[in-house]
């Protein structure tokens, strides 16, 4: 990694106001992250507050259905209900080290907003969360949680009122207050050093997987499957295995309703390299370079860009990309609920749907780790509405 470039992806495409702040952030991360004091604070919070390590669960019933041996990495059991807290705690500690008093962020599914509000309270930092008006509606339960924690929720009603718009407005806001306020980026997106920082904090997932799977299977997994848009839970799981060339990495993005007519979020299938929100990414856009809105029922996958590192991994064929359509995703929720008694987040259900749809891709003796990124409580109403209507 050089200057945050992953092949043709990445970089620091921001205006001059923010550039000095990014340089300062990178320096702060390099200075503090490795110190025993920082590690100690972070690990203590991850253990005692977040509930790590999360279990690696052998899902026997789901395994039988797919026809291989599937382990679920239970990020749904992280306090707050998703992997997002791993990164939020890390960046909140970093915010304190930098002497900043406030954090701003954006959220779509509400999981990252919730995680940031939690981390903010734990670290004594004020938190403001930008959220698209459409997402505020469809992820109402998380909005309530965030507000109960005392964070300010700022509705974003530009564009389609979804994640892309919330990121744009958070960047604009940050331009006015970057010297006192940290932008706690929620995924492995944005200008360098964000993709690096977020992937580093999330890689606790993969480190745990490595230890746990070796203990259970006496070998590395054959395959890791993860859903994603920016790529933070996927990279968190993948990172310690990127150099292990025999481990297959599968990344599942949001197919939306169909791949046609702006009804999808599948940037690997129908996007191309472009510059958005500070970096070159694989991104949905028209032939002139205007960014297209993405669509999927999973708010957390509803972003037109794939982060630089996952874009690079797919481009170099180290990772394989797949997608799942909305209807398949709802069915996958049901499959997981009926086989293992677990209700996954709609985002997570994309990874599940991929396995259900592509059973032939998995051998009988294959050991697969599915990164179970979050629980579905936040999506309950959407899920019930889908099944009642169809």
């Amino acid at each position, binding site marked *: 990694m050089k*200057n945050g470039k992953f092949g043709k992806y990445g*970089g*620091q*495409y*921001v*205006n*001059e*106001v*923010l*550039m*000095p*702040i990014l340089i300062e952030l990178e320096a702060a991360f390099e200075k503090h992250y490795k110190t025993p004091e920082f590690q100690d604070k972070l690990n203590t919070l991850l253990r005692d507050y977040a509930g790590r390590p999360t279990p690696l669960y052998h899902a026997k019933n789901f395994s039988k259905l797919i026809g291989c041996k599937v382990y679920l990495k239970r990020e749904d059991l992280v306090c707050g209900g998703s992997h997002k807290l791993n990164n939020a705690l890390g960046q909140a500690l970093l915010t304190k080290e930098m002497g900043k008093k406030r954090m701003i962020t954006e959220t779509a599914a509400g999981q990252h907003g919730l995680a940031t509000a939690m981390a903010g309270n734990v670290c004594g930092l004020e938190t403001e969360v930008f959220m698209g008006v459409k997402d505020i509606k469809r992820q109402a339960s998380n909005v309530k949680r965030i507000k109960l924690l005392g964070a300010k929720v700022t509705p974003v009603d*530009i*564009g389609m009122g979804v994640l*892309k718009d919330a990121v*744009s407005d958070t*960047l*604009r806001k940050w*331009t*006015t*207050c*970057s*010297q006192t306020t940290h932008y706690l980026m929620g995924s492995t997106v944005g200008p360098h050093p964000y993709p690096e920082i977020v992937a580093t904090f999330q890689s606790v997932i993969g480190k745990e997987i490595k230890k746990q799977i070796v203990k259970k299977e006496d070998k590395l997994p054959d395959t890791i499957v993860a859903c994603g848009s920016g790529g933070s839970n996927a990279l968190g799981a993948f990172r310690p295995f990127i150099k292990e060339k025999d481990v297959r990495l599968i990344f599942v993005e949001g197919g939306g309703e169909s791949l046609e007519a702006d009804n999808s979020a599948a940037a690997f299938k129908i996007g*191309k*390299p*472009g*510059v*958005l*929100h*500070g970096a*070159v990414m694989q991104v949905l*856009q028209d*032939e*002139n*370079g*205007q*960014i*297209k809105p993405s669509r999927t029922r999973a708010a957390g996958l509803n972003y037109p860009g794939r982060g630089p590192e996952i874009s690079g991994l797919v481009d170099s064929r180290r990772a394989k990309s797949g997608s799942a359509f909305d209807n398949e995703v709802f069915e996958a929720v049901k499959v997981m609920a009926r086989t293992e008694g677990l209700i996954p987040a709609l985002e997570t259900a994309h990874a599940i749907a991929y396995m259900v749809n592509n059973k032939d891709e998995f051998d009988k003796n294959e050991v697969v780790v599915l990164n179970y990124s979050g629980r579905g409580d936040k999506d309950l109403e959407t899920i019930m509405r889908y099944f009642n209507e169809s």
Partner: protein
Amino acid sequence: MNLENKFRELQNKGEGAHMPHVYYGDPHEEFSLKLLETLVENGADIIEFGIPFSDPTADGPTFQAVCERALENGMTPSRCIEGIKKLRTKGIDNPIVVTTYYNIPYVMGVRKFLDKIKQAGAQAIIVPNVPVEEADVLLAEGKKSGIHPIFQIAPTTTEERLKKITDIASGFLYVIGVEGVTGVRESLGDSTLKLVQRVRKHTDMPLMAGFGISTKKQAAAVVLAGANGAIAGSAYARIYEKNLKNPETTLPEITKLVEQIKQGCIEGYKQRK
């Protein structure tokens, strides 16, 4: 006329330069052409010609709405470049500086894009989301195409960066006086004037101050502080957006504002010791 000659001409006349910023195609092309003609006839020295982008993260609400409308009405980068040609055909000779976000030239191919705007009659380009760290391509291709990449300086810019930027810049420097995005602001904080003075110590290159300028007084203040001129953009859009059905009816009010801002640029210069 090229930028160097324009700045020299104004210096000889003892005036500051005014550069209005217009996103092309809002609410439609014919109006943009009329607007730009009106601005040039009544005081604009340089044109900042904006090519609309879907996600203008350095722009405030006024210009966001402007970009959205222009794109909804079918404006494309190619039609914008044709628009530059139309201005030249009309005999407008003022320097034209194109502003857009990096994805537009990136997708077309940076070299091809720069060649096209050069052929159409532009002299320079502002890409707000390309800092010096990412400017290698723009600098190299700009040199080949004969287009100046314009760099910005902000209140957060350190001395070290200031040196880096002034070392590679050409055409002029764009001084962003406030920490924030484009848009009209009530008052121009001390920060703008201080920044102009700070940058002036580093370089003799022309400085254009922008972001938040909408009045004669503000224009005069930045020129007095040492800037070669003032940039105003959202202030004009705020006038014509009041009547998007018949934006032409707002041209008299726009004429008045451009005259005033230009007057400010002149007075600011005269007030210098």
